[in-house]
């Protein structure tokens, strides 16, 4: 069971944490670093969205890039073809993603473990291949470019730093949503299902509608990240917004940081960006693949040594130390 939160860890610590995150791009203000921080924040937001369903309900989806990509494509296509602002388009993208998630969930939510994983893989592949082939709509493999017309209502900014804070706002909002759900009856029902679905069922907890609902919420939220991705790069193409590696990364960030915790995805995303910044700083781009190689090695080590993720493992370690000392 979850311990009663003290005001220190419940409110002060997160606020202090977000204040540090907000200060990061101001302290180190060169363009390379700001870009890395922005991507870390965007990754953290997407991973938080993934974690709602993947972490709390244990539905390990590897098709979430499809929803991320839908968010990017729906807002971009509406903006390019009908002049609709991405501020509206991102909500429409979220609705499309959530609706699709309800459909997918209705088919796949009864599948166990690896079968669910494989069905989401197939779903991700179907959407990815469709995006490549619907050339009239999506521009095919070469993608769509968004003209640079900076204005807040286009969600296009000449200063890249603004995107950093847009992404940070997403992180904070998604973190708050996660905390609210985790503390609610829904959150407890999902965790009960994740830990032992037979026992949860015996207690009379009906999780199917909840799981589908949270899956849809997770899909809708990650789709908003996709829209921000499109506006940041001003470019959308199937491989960079719908690739399998993207789905894998959303999941791995949460797992490395701490699956099913509200702060885990943020820790994981920051770690990933630290690894990639360090690798790029020391090795440059001489040999492709090395950053990902190091990342994969770290993930494997974390899974073997600290399978609950770095955050919870560190917490447990500190707690043991504290009881020793006292």
């Amino acid at each position, binding site marked *: 069971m979850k311990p009663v939160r003290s005001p220190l860890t419940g409110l002060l610590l997160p606020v202090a944490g977000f204040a540090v995150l907000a200060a990061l791009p101001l302290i180190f203000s060169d363009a390379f670093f700001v870009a890395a921080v922005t991507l870390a924040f965007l990754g953290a937001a997407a991973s938080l969205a993934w974690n709602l369903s993947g972490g709390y309900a*244990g539905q*390990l989806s*590897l098709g979430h890039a499809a929803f991320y990509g839908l968010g990017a494509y729906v807002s971009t296509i509406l903006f390019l073809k009908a002049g609709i602002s991405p501020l509206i388009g991102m909500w429409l993208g979220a609705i499309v993603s959530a609706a699709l998630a309800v459909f997918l969930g209705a*088919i*796949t*939510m*009864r*599948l*166990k*473990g*690896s*079968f669910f*994983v*494989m*069905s989401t*893989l*197939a*779903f991700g*592949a*179907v959407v990815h*291949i*469709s995006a*490549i*082939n619907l050339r009239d709509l999506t521009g095919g493999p070469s993608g769509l470019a968004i003209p640079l017309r900076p204005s807040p209502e286009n969600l296009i900014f000449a200063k890249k730093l603004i995107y950093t804070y847009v992404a940070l706002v997403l992180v904070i909002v998604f973190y708050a949503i996660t905390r609210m759900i985790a503390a609610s009856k829904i959150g407890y029902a999902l965790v009960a299902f994740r830990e032992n*679905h*037979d026992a949860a*069922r015996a207690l009379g*907890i*009906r*999780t*199917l509608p909840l799981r589908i609902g949270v899956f849809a919420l997770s899909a809708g939220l990650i789709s908003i990240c996709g829209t921000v991705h499109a506006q940041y790069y001003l470019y959308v193409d199937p491989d960079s917004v719908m690739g*399998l*590696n993207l789905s*894998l990364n959303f*999941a*791995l960030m949460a*797992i490395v940081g701490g*699956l099913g915790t509200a702060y885990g995805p943020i820790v994981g995303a920051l770690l990933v960006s630290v690894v990639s910044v360090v690798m790029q700083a020391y090795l440059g781009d001489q*040999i*492709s*693949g*090395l950053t*990902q*190689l190091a*990342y*994969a*090695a770290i*993930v*494997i080590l974390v*899974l*073997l040594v600290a*399978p609950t993720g770095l955050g919870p493992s560190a917490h447990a370690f500190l707690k043991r130390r504290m009881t020793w000392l006292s």
Partner: protein
Amino acid sequence: MDIYIQLALSGLFIGGVYALISVGLTLVFGVLRVVNFAHGEYLTIAMYLTYFMFQRVGIDPFVASIAVVPLMFVLGLATERLLIRPTLEAPHVVQVFVTFALSLFLQNLLLALFTSDFRSVRTPYATAAFQIGPLYVSWLRAAVFVVALAFAGGLAAFLKYTYMGSAIRATAQDRRSARLVGINVDRVYAVTFALGCALVGAAGILLSPLFSVNPYTGADMILVSFVIVVLGGMGSIAGAVTAGLLIGVVESFTGYLAGGELKQLVYFVLFMIVLAVRPNGLFGRKGAEVMDVT
């Protein structure tokens, strides 16, 4: 009409290799209850080994299998010992992502070592063909088909007639009872996983004269293999072979009728339908795949 027979034949030939890839995956799942998401990377590794043996030493791919298959077996043993065994009792999420991370690791290791360039094994006999009535049959593809099915048949015989084979089948049926009657279950796990890698290695060797290899080749192939394994029924070897041949033919027809890119779409949609309608597949045992839902 002839074109359709020709299509069916070429689909069947490639389906033989798909079957061999999937047999390893389904065997490992049936015994260890683990889906090895890095299965495709072992295919890639075997293709690279075959390529370098051919290119640097001049050994024919079919001869190279004598060295490559045992090498893949040893690699499988090492993987099982280092990554699979420590996580067998771990939560499901750890099992899934340890093999996914391994896949990422191996892909990028191969990328760092060999770049993303495509490399191909060009044998002198690659284009040789013979004719039966109106049909043209490539010697190479026919040989690949025969050897692939021979490997699958060899596995079936091994499982049926040897002590280790019986132990593997017993463990697949009920691991606790298998331990009770004195089967060394840990050894069964190790041998099964290594067999899976050796079989996908054999498939890699057979594919190398037909397809060029780069670090992502296995990842592309493996998605087909998931479709086949689920369609055939997770854990069923007869199912994997049947579904492998079937998917080969389906792919060949949709590739011809709908174009190369859409053929993938067709089998993924098929996959979703199978999972929705009959998730235990054509030959699978019930119970592994769905839960009672509320």
